[in-house]
């Protein structure tokens, strides 16, 4: 540890900083691999600020400066101003509606001179802070349902605004904060129910609806038969079984079709189905006639992205083709190469070994954050730490799962690696605030 500058470095968890540096450097390499063209003058482009990797490098420098500022800030500042940040974040999200610029399909970006600013990204920090602030309040009793609902609302409100800006992917990130609430005492049942519902929806997509309902009915009857003794003793058990059965079947028969027909857009439906490798059923396409009409003439394979991404990952083999040698990633076969599908560059260039190492680094990061969170004396710091872990976890898992064809294509970046100034800054700020809070872990913040 650096002992010469005790004022800043005291108590700082250097492992997080190192992981941060390693990831950003991997990211720079990956962006270089994805966007470098033969005969690009590398040095010159760094000075010119023209290529993506040089831009990312400058963002990296800016993030470092910002991180340094955060480390110099008093950790009380964050807990004290958490609600103000949240209000600011919501205000900016609302500002987007009148002032957004038109950039390919999204309405979530404000143009500030040369920079594109996306408040939804920034809002993640605000929610993490505000949620921590709310949960750490002395008069918050998180065992009460009301508090749980308020906490959920804090996370859901920006998500709703984000969906209204046509950024469904970013909005989903806010769901990650349930992990924080779970840590703070949200009943396990919520997690179980959430998981069960998720599985049911996936099953609905995979298996024919009536068949699935039939299977569930048989399971319900079987359970009722096995539990006949308990039922004899207490009739509520039977009522519970019937209740669960009714809910499940209605999800299958009504909720899922309803969502697919009227809530989701056609392209989203297509992406979901392309993940599981199926054609979109006719009844869903029929419900999206209007969009279908506007699609005519620009017909493109909906699963093109996923297929190309899978090819890129799959052709990497065990040790990969080497940096700049991947044909898939170098010659534009994978769309959104430098941002959402940056993982492909690593997978194709460095193969399974490279991916495994990268995943290990990420896992190390997450575990380290959890460890750090757990050692906090202050609830605020702990909750914030879990918030950071949750956001990182969600980004990493969804992004990589999307690249390997396990999740539908949702445009969210891979932390510290994807190209993009806003996302790099956001993740840096998230991480460095945690480092700062951790440095003062013995202090109790409210």
């Amino acid at each position: 540890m650096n002992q010469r500058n005790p004022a800043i470095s005291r108590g700082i968890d250097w492992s997080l900083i190192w992981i941060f540096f390693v990831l950003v450097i991997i990211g720079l390499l990956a962006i270089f691999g994805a966007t470098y063209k033969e005969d690009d003058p590398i040095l010159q482009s760094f000075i010119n600020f023209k290529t993506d990797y040089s831009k990312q490098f400058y963002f990296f420098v800016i993030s470092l400066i910002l991180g340094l500022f955060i480390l110099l800030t008093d950790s009380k500042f964050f807990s004290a101003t958490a609600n103000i940040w949240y209000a600011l974040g919501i205000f900016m999200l609302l500002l987007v509606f009148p002032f957004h610029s038109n950039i390919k399909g999204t309405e979530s970006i404000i143009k500030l001179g040369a920079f594109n600013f996306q408040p939804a990204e920034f809002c993640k920090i605000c929610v993490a802070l505000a949620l921590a602030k709310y949960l750490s309040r002395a008069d918050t009793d998180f065992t009460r349902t009301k508090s749980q609902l308020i906490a959920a609302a804090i996370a859901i409100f920006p998500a709703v605004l984000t969906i209204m800006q046509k950024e469904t992917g970013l909005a989903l990130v806010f769901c990650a904060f349930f992990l924080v609430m779970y840590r703070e005492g949200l009943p396990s049942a919520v997690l179980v129910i959430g998981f069960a519902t998720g599985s049911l929806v996936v099953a609905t997509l995979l298996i024919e609806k009536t068949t699935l309902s039939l299977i569930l009915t048989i399971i319900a009857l079987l359970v009722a038969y096995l539990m006949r003794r308990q039922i004899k003793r207490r009739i509520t058990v039977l009522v519970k079984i019937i209740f669960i059965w009714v809910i499940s079947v209605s999800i299958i028969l009504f909720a899922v079709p309803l969502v697919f027909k009227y809530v989701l857009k056609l392209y989203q439906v297509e992406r979901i189905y392309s993940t599981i490798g199926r054609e979109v059923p006719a009844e869903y396409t029929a419900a999206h006639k209007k969009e279908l009409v506007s699609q005519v003439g620009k017909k493109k394979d909906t699963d093109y992205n996923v297929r190309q991404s899978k090819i890129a990952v799959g052709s990497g083999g065990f040790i990969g083709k080497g940096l700049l040698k991947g044909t898939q990633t170098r010659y534009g076969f994978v769309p959104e190469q430098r941002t959402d599908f940056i993982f492909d560059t690593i997978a194709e260039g460095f193969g399974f070994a490279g991916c495994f190492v990268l995943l290990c680094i990420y896992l190390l990061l997450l575990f380290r954050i959890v460890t750090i969170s757990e050692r906090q004396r202050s609830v605020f710091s702990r909750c914030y730490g879990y918030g950071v872990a949750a956001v990182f976890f969600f980004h990493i898992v969804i992004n990589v799962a999307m690249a390997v064809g396990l999740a539908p294509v949702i445009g969210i970046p891979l932390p510290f690696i994807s190209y993009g100034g806003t996302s790099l800054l956001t993740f840096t700020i998230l991480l460095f605030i945690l480092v700062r809070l951790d440095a003062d872990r013995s202090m109790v913040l409210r």
Partner: protein
Amino acid sequence: MPVFNQSRSRIIRLIFLIAFFIIAARLFYLQIISSEFDRLAMNNAVFPKIIYPERGIIYDRKGKAILNNTRMYDLMVTPAEIKNLDTFAFCRLMEIDTAEFRFRIREASFKNSRVRPSVFQSILKPQMQARFEENSWKFPGFALVERPVRTYPYNAAAHILGYINEVDPEDVERSGNFYRQGDYIGKSGLEYTYEKVLMGQRGVQYMIKDNLNRLVGKYKEGILDTSAVAGRGVRTYLDIDLQQLAEKLMSNKVGAVVAIDPKTGGILAMTSGPDFNPNELTGPDKNKNYSRMVLDVAGPLLNRAINGRYPPGSTYKPVGALVALDEGVINPSSGIGCAGAYYGCNRPVRCTEKFGGHAANLRLAIAWSCNSFFSNTFRLTVDNPKYRNPRKGLTRWKEYMNAFDLGRRTGIDLPSENGGNVPDTVAYDKEYRGSWNSCTMVTIGIGQDKLLVTPLQMANSICIVANRGYYYTPHFVEKIDGETTEDTLLNRFRQKHEVLTHISDEAYDAVIGGMQDVVEHGTARIAQIPGINICAKTGTAENYTVVDHKRLKLPDNSMFVCFAPRENPRIAIAVVVENAGFGATWAGPIARILMEKYLNDTLQTKSKDDLERIGNSNLMPAYLKRVQYVEDSTRARRWFEKTNDSAYLKKYEQPDRRIVEKYPFEKNNLPLTKEKSESAAILRDDKQFRKPSFQPVS
């Protein structure tokens, strides 16, 4: 401090672990277990670019390249790169209108995407190319791309050399998908026969392409690439000067000339009239020229030297005499009295000579081409007492004919050869229900009736006579550059066929002597060359055709066969000029000029005059105009019925009086029988060439 939830941190870590494990398992499956993605990535990004080798060159006997390669240019366009184009100026330069321009650009963008170059115009005319090059800076998005094209430096030997064209689906299938769409393949002539030798070996360059199929570089620095091997040269026996001379002589005539070196079977010249400039089937106008030639009823694409079936007429007589001598039915001193016709059968066979003693012996009969003598000789051959049955006699005769390579394909190294026709007992049984005798077919003795031969067969049979019994299969190619034992193409041409060497020297002496007399004081005195003993035989064959459903007797075909010098034959020639009259008037001088050119390398003054006279004469049969008119108007009619487009039909609404009325029909036009039509040298639709597409040529 709520400690009770501490255990949940472990569950959260477990969730992290499970999620990462699932992803790692998926990665393991995609990257290590499944192997298809590697292949898919290769398919995506690696493009095997075929490198076409230079096609082999064909040389004549003196080493002159008679079929060579040259470069022409395709104009390519990349629609996405067109910026600030002065469309009007560009169209004026390319001689198209703006609508056509827009259509082509749209077509290119649609077929091949906007970012890749597509052909805007294939094979630019030289002057257009020059104009474009001067102004190319004005037209961004357009570029010239080199393209090898075949060229015929001497503008000669179109039928022999053949041409190449893009492969048809059938070619692709026949080659087992060796050829691909867009490849070129030899379609006729030597280009076809020696395709394997001439095409060389294709190379492959593995290129990396991007998501828009643009080539961006070499795959793995080209370590997998194979280079192309140029096609090998082919050396022929052809004498290109002689060939050009023959083509000049046959211009504006229907017929054929074949000149063979009897000692090797190598063909020195072969021409078929009417012919065409082979360069017309390369270059920018090749499709236009091709359809014009396909629709021409004179059949310029038809190689009559191997495809024309002609009654040999009197040129058959030396062969007939040899057969009779070998069979022992006559001897060199046999003779008959002839007073202008042969009366041995019901209908007299006319003879052109009347003076007494012109058929007193074999030599005289050949020299004066006595029809009576050879009618008699043929009857004697068929009614040979040795066999006691005309069937056996005829069968035996046919065996001789086949030995002379008549009535079957010679096996020349050109595609789609015709075998001619030598009738056998089956043919006559069918026609005369089994009741026939030697009188039925007596005119075979003078080379008429059902006997049909190709000019190549005529020349080849004369080679056999000149060689006194042996021959080599007539062929063009002497050797292939870099020949190895694997090149079996030429083996059959190097085999000596000693088919008739058993015929006695006296017989050959008598016949060859007769042929020499023909030139010295017989019917072909016109063919004399001072200092060279020439042996020859003239021929004049009757022939018929059908015009407007009527049988029409055409002027006789003028035929001539010869070889020289007598002592050591170096050249044998067969000439057929359709509808030109007596053999001695046209065919004879043509043969003499060619012999003189080949043997002396210079022409005497008389021959130079003849060359001028013959070269400038137009002997195209008059009936062809009428046939062409009927064909064209019928086609225009059908086109009108199909499309309601009367543009072509209008031309024929007012009949051209000159063509319709002026044509001289003979009075006693007999109804045409199928057999008779065969004996007429009718123009045939050749399978070698594709059927004309139904589209009138404007």
